[in-house]
């Protein structure tokens, strides 16, 4: 029984990676170009923005919230950042402006949710429309062009490794560290798992929620810089729907919508699964409509697989130790 227990534990802990490996194998069989350095680098580069957003969604979902405004805030932060660079020529300034703008938007989210008890869905939905409107208002609906050196963020490379991938790697390490090696990370799981129990256990839930949104803001801001510099334009209409992609990657990667469960590596794997899917379908020329159907079906399958392998965790443990001696003499009249 102990062996069976161990095997099912491994299955459930690594199930999403098994799916990822499975996908990679299938993809490499479907198209010989898939496993080439060029293609994989491409995929990683394409995934950088989405995965960074997915990390933001992940930490929010783990703590029982979510963010529907990510795509819009990304656009707002991005266009303001680009604009700042064109006005001042300062790359660092532009980078910080993007983060500042995104953090401010997310603090507003945090206030609505924490102080005014607005449901996260509604609050971030409102921010989604407001931020998008603000981006359009600022740019008068037009794209900002001629970015000059700004593109270095998304199109440059360091020692041959494209910058988006470096950003992604560094951020992955930081998020991993946050969730695993800090009290804040542990609190996220607790709050998402049972907020009232967390309060009753002495956790300052309000403060933690503010911190989570600030971190999300930093991630969204960085994503904004990477996005705009990749497309070489300040697109106020860019990244529409990206929050859904982030949510999907997090969920496919094992983050539970009901809170309290999720891992950095799982989300990374989830993002790669979806990204590889898109990539292989483009490589093999699958029709656009079919792509949508396939994508939806595979995401559903990945999530169902993941849920089933986790369900073992929740069945009641009835007997734990050896049975006791049943022989007992009784005098019954």
């Amino acid at each position, binding site marked *: *029984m102990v062996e*069976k*227990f161990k095997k*099912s534990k491994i299955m459930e802990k690594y199930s999403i990676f098994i799916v990822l490996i499975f996908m990679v194998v299938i993809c490499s069989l479907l198209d010989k170009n898939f496993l080439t350095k060029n293609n994989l680098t491409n995929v990683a580069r394409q995934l950088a923005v989405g995965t960074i957003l997915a990390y933001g969604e992940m930490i929010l979902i783990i703590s029982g919230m979510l963010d529907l405004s990510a795509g819009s805030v990304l656009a707002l932060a991005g266009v303001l950042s680009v604009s700042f660079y064109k006005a001042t020529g300062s790359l660092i300034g532009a980078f910080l402006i993007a983060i500042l703008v995104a953090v401010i938007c997310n603090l507003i989210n945090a206030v609505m949710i924490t102080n005014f008890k607005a449901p996260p869905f509604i609050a971030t939905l409102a921010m989604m429309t407001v931020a998008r409107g603000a981006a359009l208002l600022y740019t008068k609906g037009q794209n900002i062009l001629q970015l000059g050196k700004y593109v270095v963020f998304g199109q440059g490379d360091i020692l041959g490794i494209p910058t988006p991938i470096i950003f992604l790697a560094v951020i992955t390490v930081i998020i991993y560290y946050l969730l*695993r*090696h*800090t*009290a804040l990370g*542990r*609190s996220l*799981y*607790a709050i998402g*798992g*049972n907020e*009232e*129990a*967390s*309060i*009753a*256990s*002495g*956790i*300052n839930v309000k403060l933690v929620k503010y911190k989570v949104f600030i971190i999300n803001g930093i991630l969204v801001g960085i994503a904004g810089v990477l996005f705009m510099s990749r497309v070489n334009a300040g697109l106020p209409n860019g990244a529409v729907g990206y929050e859904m992609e982030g949510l999907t990657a997090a969920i496919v990667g094992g983050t*539970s919508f*009901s*809170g*309290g*469960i999720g891992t950095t590596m799982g989300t990374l794997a989830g993002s790669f699964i979806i990204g590889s899917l898109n990539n292989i379908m483009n490589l093999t020329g699958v029709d656009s409509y079919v792509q949508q159907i396939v994508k939806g079906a595979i995401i559903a399958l990945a999530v169902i697989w993941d849920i089933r392998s986790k369900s*073992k*965790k*929740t*069945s*009641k*443990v*009835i*007997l*734990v*130790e050896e*049975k*006791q*001696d*049943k022989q*007992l003499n*009784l005098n*019954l*009249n």
Partner: protein
Amino acid sequence: MSQEIKLRVSNIEKSFPGVKALDKIDFSVRKGTVHALCGENGAGKSTLMKIINGIYKPDAGQIFIDEKPVKIQNPIQAASYGIAMIAQELNYVPEMSVEENLFLGRLPTNKFGKVDWKKLRRDTIKFLKDEDLPYEPDQKLKTLTVSDIQMLEIIKAISNNASIIVMDEPTSAITQREVEKLFEKIAMLKKKGVSIIYISHKLDEVFQIADDITVFRDGTVVASHPAKDLTMDDVIALMVGRKITNVYPKEECPIGENILEVENLYSKGVFKDIHFHVKKGEIIGFAGLVGAGRTELMRSLFGLDPITSGKIKIHGKEVKIESVHDSIANKMVMLSEDRRRYGIIPVRSVMENASISSLQKFFYGGYWHSKQEKEMVGNYFKKMNVKTPTLETTIQSLSGGNQQKVLLAKWMLLEPDILILDEPTRGIDVGAKFEIYKLMTDMAKQGKSVIMISSELPELIGMCDRIYVMNKGRITGELQRDEFTQEKIMKFAT
């Protein structure tokens, strides 16, 4: 009382992954009788009841009702056979109202099929009046205490005209007077020919009302006899497989000076004029009926709810407690009554549940000291005899008693001076109860203090040095150990 068999199960087997929960169970209940099931947590009683109620399907064996074989696929089918079950772990929807809950599944409809809310309201008001319950029909369940909800569930099941009612720990959350009301109802049901399966750890109650007693241990039936043929000690011995002598491990401990003084505590609309004190080494009890305000008082003391006015002094110094953090900083902790809602974090591991209030002990120096956490938590678990396959097991797969011990470990990790316990032994088997009492005594021996809210008078009388009694938000009486009697307590409580 007839010899006619109403319900019979034969050769029932049930296994879960890695565990055999029920092993060749034969069990029968006579018509119009109360049949008690006793056994430690995990012995199999709840599993068998879930099979009878259609929640689980047996791997083998047969169920007979009125000696006719039946297949029970789901609770709705069970209900059609006249089976009603009042579960131990109350699953309630906090946002649901009293009237919605009362008529769940059988909302009155008008001839168009729409819900007749007026009739629902009328029926509910009549019902609440008949049963003498002080609730409003549109009150949301989240405003009721666990005791209220349990009472409601019991009465609901009775009013649904079941012929077999399973009651799983029905008196765990209600007070003496309500227990008596319940027993009156049970007697009435017996006369009508209803059979009742009564699962309880409270053996004195069992012996009060049971006609037959069946004892489960480790998934099998170890004994099944008419109640008159057994003594309480026999049953305990059968349940645990060994003899237990001392139910309440109370010891004399040196009493020191005041560790906690509460003066003039007032929370608008909840409690008023609260004065009490606790000395080092004391175990203080808080008795009272459901709704007396005990839980509310302790929640305010612990920093979960606000106080309108009043003073709290710890170690003689006045302190301001405006959050749980403040309370913990003053070394005062509280184990909540409703562990589902305020206690456990269901999807996380037992280790994480135990360490959640002591995070700074394992997250410092820039990284997570996981080995330290495992050791520390593991030690406390060993001390308190927490039964769990591994430290990574999710807490919701543990039995109620073990969950409670994990939560206690969480607080003990903080090495508190004052331990507040709100109904700590509710729904817990004899063995685990004993361990919690021992813990209380150990605390007292070390010069710490314990405050226990309980609706189980024998428990209060057995373990406490002094008992405060509350009624309608005020402290109505204080009794010393040498004057403890159930009658005196009840007098102050009403």
